[in-house]
Structures are given as C-alpha cells and as structure tokens.
C-alpha cells in the first residue's frame, strides 16, 4: 500500500537525500519521456543545492502506448533497485533515452556491476510490473496528468519545470 499519493514514503519509495529532509520532492516520471530527461538535470541541480534539506523520491508513470520502452525501462530500474542500485540505473536510463532496448538494459546492468542476465529475466517475467502499476495508479489518483509531474511537500507543482521556478517553489533560491 502507498501511504500517500503525493508525499514520499521512505519505507516504500526509492528515496534520495535525507529521510529527515524538510523539503519533500516527489516526481512521477517516465524514462522514455523527453521532458522527464530534461527535468532530470534540474532535479540533480536542486539536489546539489539543497543537500540534506531535500528528500527526493521517484515513482514510475510510464505512458506505455506512446513510449514502448518505458515499461521495461522502469522494470529495469526496479530490478537494479532489488540489487541495491536503483539510482545508478535511473541516471543511466535518462542519459540514454534513445537506447532502451532489452539488450541495452542488460548492458547498463553489467556496467553497474549488476547481474544483467538476472535483470533481463526479471524484466521478461514482469516481476516488478505490479509495483510499477501501483506507482502509476497512485499518480492517477493523486492528480498526475502527464509527465513529469512534481509534488512539493504534498502539493502538486503546476509551474514551469526549470531550475529557477522549481527550486524557488522548493524553498531554495536559484
């Protein structure tokens, strides 16, 4: 069960930063969405600037009909997470958005020192599909209409996704 549709849940979600961070930023995203790849750079910058004040969490919101590789990419991130490196895979997927075939996913896993064969086996048998669907459903019920959608301390952020605005809304100063 997901405790909150719009707030990170450190017990369930993949979180980055301090669990005590006073600023809670939750992103619903899709690894094949170009806007999410752009937003990734902004999130990185915000993480750097806010340091321990920020708790960042990512939930999957793959639009699988228009992004045919998004589901397997999300499952690969979860599989990497099961081996302890969700964020490593997360970064690689956004950096390599044009190469998200299953072979590519296996290569990225190997590059991270993970078991690529296991990862592909888990992806092929949809081991993490239910979790991704839970993420997706929580987004739909929380007011996510497209990707990326951010929630700052539980409130949907409807402003521009650029450093100045997102950082400003997160309580930092660009």
């Amino acid at each position: 069960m997901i405790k909150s549709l719009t707030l990170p849940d450190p017990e369930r979600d993949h979180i980055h930063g301090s669990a005590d961070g006073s600023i809670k930023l939750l992103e619903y995203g899709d690894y094949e969405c170009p806007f999410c790849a752009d937003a990734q750079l902004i999130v990185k910058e915000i993480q750097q600037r806010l340091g321990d004040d920020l708790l960042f969490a990512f939930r999957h919101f793959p639009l699988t009909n228009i992004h045919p590789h998004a589901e397997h990419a999300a499952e690969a991130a979860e599989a990497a997470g099961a081996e302890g490196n969700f964020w490593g895979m997360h970064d690689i997927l956004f950096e390599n958005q044009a190469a998200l075939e299953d072979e590519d996913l296996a290569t990225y896993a190997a590059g991270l020192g993970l078991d690529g064969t296991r990862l592909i086996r888990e992806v092929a048998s949809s081991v993490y599909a239910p979790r991704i669907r839970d993420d997706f459903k929580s987004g739909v019920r929380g007011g996510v209409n497209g990707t990326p959608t951010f929630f700052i301390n539980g409130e949907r952020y409807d402003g521009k996704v650029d450093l100045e605005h997102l950082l400003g809304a997160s309580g930092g100063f660009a």
Partner: protein
Amino acid sequence: MSTTTTNPQTLSNGHRSALSSGTPAPDFTLRCTPDQSVSLSEFRSRPVVLAFYPADWSPVCGDQMALYNEVLDEFQEFQAEVLGISVDGAWCHAAFARQNKLHFPLLADFEPKGAVARAYGVYDEKGGTCERALFVIDPNGIIHWSYVSPIGVNPGANGILSALEDLKAKKRNDRRDK
C-alpha cells in the same frame, strides 16, 4: 489546482451551460471510424465516460487521451466505456488514434459540426470546437457527474474514477434498499 475540483459530490463545477447531474444524457449517433457509427444508447447497462476535447493533435489533448488510454484497465474495473469526442472528422481521428495507439473510440462530432457538444452544453462558439468536458453517464443513461476544465488544462482521470466509484457505491446501496 484541478484536483480540488474533482469531488464527485459536487457533481458539476458550475459551468454555465454544461448538462449537470440528474439530467438524461442526450442520445447521439456519430462516426467512430470512416465506415462505422456508434450510438450512446448501445452502452446502456454500463457506465459511459464521455470525454469532449477541443482537437486531435493539440498538445494537451494528446496527453489527456494518452492518459485515458493508460487508465483503461481501471475504467474497465467499473465496466465503463470511454468515448473521446471532438469536432474532428473520422479520418483525422483514425490518424490520431493510430499515432497514439489509442484503444478506445474517438467520435467525430463533425456534421453538423458540434451538434452533440451543443446538446451537452459544451460547444465553444468562439473557438468552433468542443470544450474540454467530462461526463460520467450511469447505466440508465442519466448523467451522474460532469466537469468542464479550462481549455488548456488536462483534467486527468481522478475525477472520473471518483465518479465511477461513487456510482458503484450508489448501485450497491440501491440493491440493498430493494
């Protein structure tokens, strides 16, 4: 924030002319492909989600229809049928649906232009398109919930799902009362 305006209890967000809860949904027959038509009355006995949107290919609509396409499983849990509807012609719809791999029908309110949107009170005379309006119609053909979104804002699926849940609960209560 649009999430605050999707409470099914309000049943309508006070749009000046959109048909509201309790009104019989006007029946219609429209083309869903260049050689096929559908009528609203074909869907009696299950809920219908009627999603009016301004135009194929405009950016927000793409997102809105793409989103409903991904939420179809949840809609189907309520046995609900989703119908997209705009003033675009059937050939335009066919290309748009193919491009976005849509798995639900898009209806062409094309001739006479916008007649169905007018019947539901959601035709934008100035723009010559449908407004961005949602109707959840109950299995008896009565409007259960309606919502008109600002034209540039994707209303998402949360309000629809809440309305379908509400409808299901109502049906359960009605059964218990009998």
